[in-house]
Every structure is written in C-alpha cells, then in structure tokens.
C-alpha cells in the first residue's frame, strides 16, 4: 500500500480508517439532529398554541433573502459533492476550485443573513433587544422570533464551522501527498456540510413559508 504511513497505529488498514471516519461522522450527525430537534419541538408546541400569530410572524420574514440563501446553500452543497468526486478521480485543481466556490457561497449565505438580521433589528423584531409589537398576535410573534434567532444563530455557527473545515481541505487539495487519507477526510467533511444544508431546508420551510397565502 502506498499510504500505509497515513494510518494511525491503532488501526489496521486504510479501509478500516475510512469506515471508522464515516461511521463516526454519521453518529455525530445523529446527535446534531436531536440538537436541532429540541428547537423543532418548541416550534411545533408554540405554533399549535397560537397558529395565527405564527402565520403573521412568517409573513414578517424576508422570503427573498431566505430563498436566495437556500439556493446558495444547495449550490454550495452541490459543489462540495462534486469536489469529492473530483478528488476521487485525482482532479486536484477542480477539487480546490469547487471547494473555493462552496466556501464563497457559504460566506455569501452568512452575509445575506447579516443583512436580514439588520433589517429585523430596524423593524424592532429582535426579542430581548428591541422587540416592539402590539396587538393580540404580539406574544406569538415574539415566541416565533425567539425560535427564529436561536435556530438561525445555531445554524449559522454550524455554517461558520463548516466553512473553516472546507477551507482546510481546499488548502490541502493540491498539496497533500496522502491521497486516500485526504479523500476519506473530505468525504467526512462533505457529510457535515450537506447536513448543514439539510437542516436549513427544514428551517426554511418552518420560518419563511408560513402565512404567505393569506
């Protein structure tokens, strides 16, 4: 084997190393599902308690930014999946380019999210900071936006972490000599990035789509 020096001393083969990495990441992702799961339960409980307010709150969100951001993350996920295929076929520059695009799209997502937060701040929709709504829906809208901020901030932390990981792999794409280990690592990192995308798909449906038809 050309890469026997890339295997830690407690593992036997590169195949075992790859399986360990992939299973470890899937286990970690199941943890992540439940981390967001607590928030999702809160959302459903309060949506059930005050459905009208949640529709009203959904209308307050910025669907254009939300939709563009979803497209950015989906495209970014596509780039990472393609980067993995490129790496598997030995196309190192394509790997680096695709990961670079994925990172830029991720940064674009964060930038737009910042614009969105700023708008919500100006419209007095930030609970605990400057929330100012009156009327019978006000409490429900406040609960919605507490969920909104905690869920999107938590997701944003995951995006930042993902960008960091992708940046490491982009930097190593053409330089690394440990190819099989690099590919196994990139596959694991890609799983994480796709998961960040997957969480957003559900957050998008819960946050931006309610109340549009009324």
């Amino acid at each position, binding site marked *: 084997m050309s890469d026997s020096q890339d295997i830690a001393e407690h593992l036997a083969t590169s195949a075992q190393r790859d399986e360990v990495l992939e299973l470890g990441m899937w286990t970690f992702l199941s943890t992540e599902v439940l981390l967001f799961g607590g928030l999702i339960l809160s959302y459903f409980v309060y949506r059930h308690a005050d459905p009208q307010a949640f529709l009203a709150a959904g209308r307050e969100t910025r669907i254009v930014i939300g*939709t563009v951001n*979803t497209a950015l993350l989906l495209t970014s996920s596509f780039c990472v999946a393609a980067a993995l295929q*490129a790496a598997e076929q030995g196309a190192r520059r394509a790997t680096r380019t695709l990961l670079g695009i994925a990172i830029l799209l991720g940064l674009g997502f964060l930038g737009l999210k910042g614009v969105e937060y700023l708008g919500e701040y100006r419209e007095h929709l930030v609970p605990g900071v400057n929330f100012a709504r009156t009327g019978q829906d006000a409490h429900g809208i406040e609960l919605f936006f507490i969920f909104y901020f905690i869920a999107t901030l938590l997701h944003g932390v995951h995006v930042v972490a993902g960008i960091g990981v992708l940046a490491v792999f982009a930097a190593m794409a053409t330089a690394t000599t440990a190819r099989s280990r690099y590919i196994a690592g990139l596959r694991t990192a*890609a799983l994480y990035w796709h998961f960040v995308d997957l969480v957003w798909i559900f957050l998008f449906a819960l946050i931006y789509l309610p109340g*549009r038809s009324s």
Partner: protein
Amino acid sequence: MSEIRRPERRLWRPFVDLVLCWIGLLALLGLTVTLSYQPLASFNFPVAMTIATIKAGLVAAIFMELRHRSGIIRAFAAAGFFWLAILLWLGLMDFLTRV
C-alpha cells in the same frame, strides 16, 4: 501518481446525477415558494413540509451518497430522525391532548 503538480489536460466535469440532483433541488425550491403563495388553507404547511422532506431525501441519497451505502450507515442516518420523531410524538402528545 508521483508527479504532484501535473497539469490537468481537460476541464473536469461532475457526474450527471449530481447535476440533475442540484437542478432538481432548485426546482423544488421554486415549487415550494410558489405553492406557499397559493391559498391551500390548512394544506400549505403539509405541502411545505413534504417538499422539504423530498429535498432532504435528495441531499441524503445523492449528495451524501446514502444510495451507495450499506444498511448500517443507513440505519445510523435514520436513527437521529427516528429519535426526533419520538421526541415530537410524545412531546406534542401532551400539548395536543390538554383539556
């Protein structure tokens, strides 16, 4: 395998299924936004969640390569969502049955 800086002769292209998946995801995004503006009354929410689930399924099956994976990995992928279902089911049960 030894030349590290060998230039690539032609532009590398991703597999067609990845591209199709990407286009499909964007189409579903357009569809869900469009449908959310249609007056479907109480059906808007189930429709949005169904499309989100299909999108998530596409990401998991194709981008995350679950379609090429063995039962054990699929079981691990499903476990988190199964337990999430327990949390939502028993958690909501209280709030839905209060009198």
